[in-house]
């Protein structure tokens, strides 16, 4: 009898119907860290396989969007860019926004996209959304190179651009965008795993959110009627700080940035918990 009670404690894995909401198995995630890097590598390599230009294609999207925005918002609509060179102003917003939006949309379909793998083999499911965020970080990094090229060009040709100490907040901004995209994406993924309806609204919702963020216009030019919505949108302080640090223009305040950061942490924590909850039963409902 004694030996069996000793044995009871030696089980490595216990499979049970329900588990605590807060049991996140983070040590398991850590054990699978190699998988994270390999998934990131897969995403990156498979993107440019059989292309001639390779990773240069990452430049295309922000470049075209910048050209279109410059044409429509600046030239046609005549919206102010806070006195900044127009392409630089738009590219700053677009590059940062794209990172957040990619994290959000990709994470929100993580169950649907990986149903075949999730249905066949166990690994900590959190690895998948994490790998999405890191994969997009690689893409974001490449796109930042384009932004820096443009930045150097405009500063050397005497554009109204002043890089300042607030640019050092950049890592914090990246972390915040990653966590916000991840958290919101995971919440949506959890909701859509059973009720697919929400999935149809995502693309539309992300676009709407972009116009509620200061991507195509500065906060100083935000319309009075929507000012509150725009200013309290957690993405707005991020993009404003980004512009302020690298370009020297924008509405920066520590208060709004901290508020947005706290909100981000809440979203991320809630996202991880709800994701873990849904992940356990997802295979049966998908």
């Amino acid at each position, binding site marked *: 009898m004694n030996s069996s009670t000793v*044995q009871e404690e*030696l*089980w*490595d*894995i*216990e*499979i*049970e*119907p*329900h588990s605590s909401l807060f049991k996140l198995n983070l040590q398991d995630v850590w054990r*699978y860290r*190699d*998988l994270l*890097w*390999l*998934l990131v*590598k*897969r995403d990156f*390599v*498979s993107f440019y*396989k*059989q292309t001639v230009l390779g990773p240069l294609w990452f430049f295309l999207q922000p470049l075209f969007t910048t050209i279109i925005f410059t044409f429509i918002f600046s030239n046609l609509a005549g919206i102010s860019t806070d006195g900044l060179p127009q392409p630089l102003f738009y590219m700053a917003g677009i590059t940062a926004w794209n990172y957040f939006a990619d994290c959000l949309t990709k994470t929100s379909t993580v169950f649907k996209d990986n149903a*075949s*793998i*999730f*249905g*066949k*083999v*166990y*690994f900590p499911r959190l690895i998948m959304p994490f790998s999405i965020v890191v994969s997009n970080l690689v893409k974001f990094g490449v796109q930042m190179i384009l932004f820096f090229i443009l930045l150097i060009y405009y500063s050397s040709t005497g554009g109204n651009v002043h890089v300042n100490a607030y640019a050092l907040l950049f890592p914090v901004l990246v972390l915040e965008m990653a966590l916000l995209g991840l958290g919101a994406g995971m919440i949506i993924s959890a909701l859509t795993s*059973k*009720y*697919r309806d929400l999935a149809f609204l995502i693309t539309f919702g992300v676009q709407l959110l972009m116009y509620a963020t200061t991507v195509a216009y500065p906060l100083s030019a935000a319309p009075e009627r929507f000012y509150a919505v725009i200013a309290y949108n957690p993405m707005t302080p991020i993009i404003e700080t980004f512009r302020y640090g690298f370009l020297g223009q924008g509405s920066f305040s520590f208060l709004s940035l901290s508020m947005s950061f706290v909100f981000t942490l809440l979203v991320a924590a809630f996202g991880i918990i709800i994701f873990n909850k849904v992940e*356990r*039963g997802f*295979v*049966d*409902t998908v």
Partner: protein
Amino acid sequence: MSVAIKIENLSKAYQLGEIGTGTLAWDLERWFARVRGKEDPFLKIGEANDRTVKGGSNIVWSLKDIDFSINQGDAVGIIGRNGAGKSTLLKILSRVTTPTTGKIKVKGRIASLLEVGTGFHPELTGRENIYLNGAILGMRKMEITRKFDEIVSFAGVERYIDTPVKRYSSGMYVRLAFAVAAHLDCEILIVDEVLAVGDAEFQKSCLGKMEDVSKNNGRTVLFVSHNMGSIASLCEKGILLSKGRIEKSGSSAEVISTYLKAHQVGNQGDLINRLDRSGTQSHKFSDILFFDHLGNPVQQVISGTETSINFFYQGNTALDRPQLKFTIYNRTGQPLSHFDSNLTVTPLSPLPNSGIIRCAFNKFPLSSGFYTINVVLVNDGVVIDYLIGAINFNVLSGNFFQSGKDVTVMEDISLHDHNWSVIK
């Protein structure tokens, strides 16, 4: 011997019909029941998983009150008809899905192969996919690097290792995928019917590898298959599942024979209703039975005993120039022997409308194993009824050579009387 897997009271319920439409109200009801600490109202009305009977409720128990434990180092075969709950059990063990009630305790790392090549990306090279797939299955990068050469040589794809796997033949693809999984470092290996893919040679090397894993490395193996032959050769123990419950557990030979008996009873009368047949079908095979020397039907043939194969057929006319041919295949589909009533000294005599055609053996010439028969009835050169895979049958080890010894190094082979001598 210590217990590697302990399963207590395991049940799994599935919801039938559509999920996600009109279920919000039910979900709320469920949630409310749980909040009050009551039992889930939708699980109470569940019933056994018999897919042939239309049930009254929307919930079906794919597994119900499963209770068993597996010792370390055992190779256990899990058998049962489609829908018996085999795959559900493996899925829960692999932690792909969760049980509805009950608990499983496991000692050691589990590697499960519910499918070969999970997560393979067609654009990536063989090398990149080995790393990716290995990591998905739970290996560290270091570990994969250490075993890389072994994996590549087991798969036999040295030349193609830096080619994207989308250019691989399907055989190469499967070999590579199995090789990765077979080289996992784990204490428990779970394999679900993956050997159904790939050619005969590959299947043999997979079985060999699994045998090696279970017998020489002392690892625990759980194996689901419809191939009784490979279960018999690989596993000492067996568990027979039926409608989500354990019908029998014990030695694999015992369990297999229980299964085959139940299965053959289910098959009786089925043969005549099969649609995958060709020929004029004026006469049809209705049953194929093995009789022993006393004329009693047997479920399993014993190697080397006096046995007859009896082909029952039904029709409305007599056949005056009949010919019956059949071929016996082993589990991998290789033909072993061919029998043709026109080749023997006395051909078949004319057939009545319905009857039995018997082919008798003084000593049944097959070793222990699992076999399939293709059979065709011909009259005057016209095919009357032709069935591929007409029946599957099991042969048990026997005393073919009358020496008390039997072939043990191989299964599924034909045996021949012969004599040895030394010429000086």
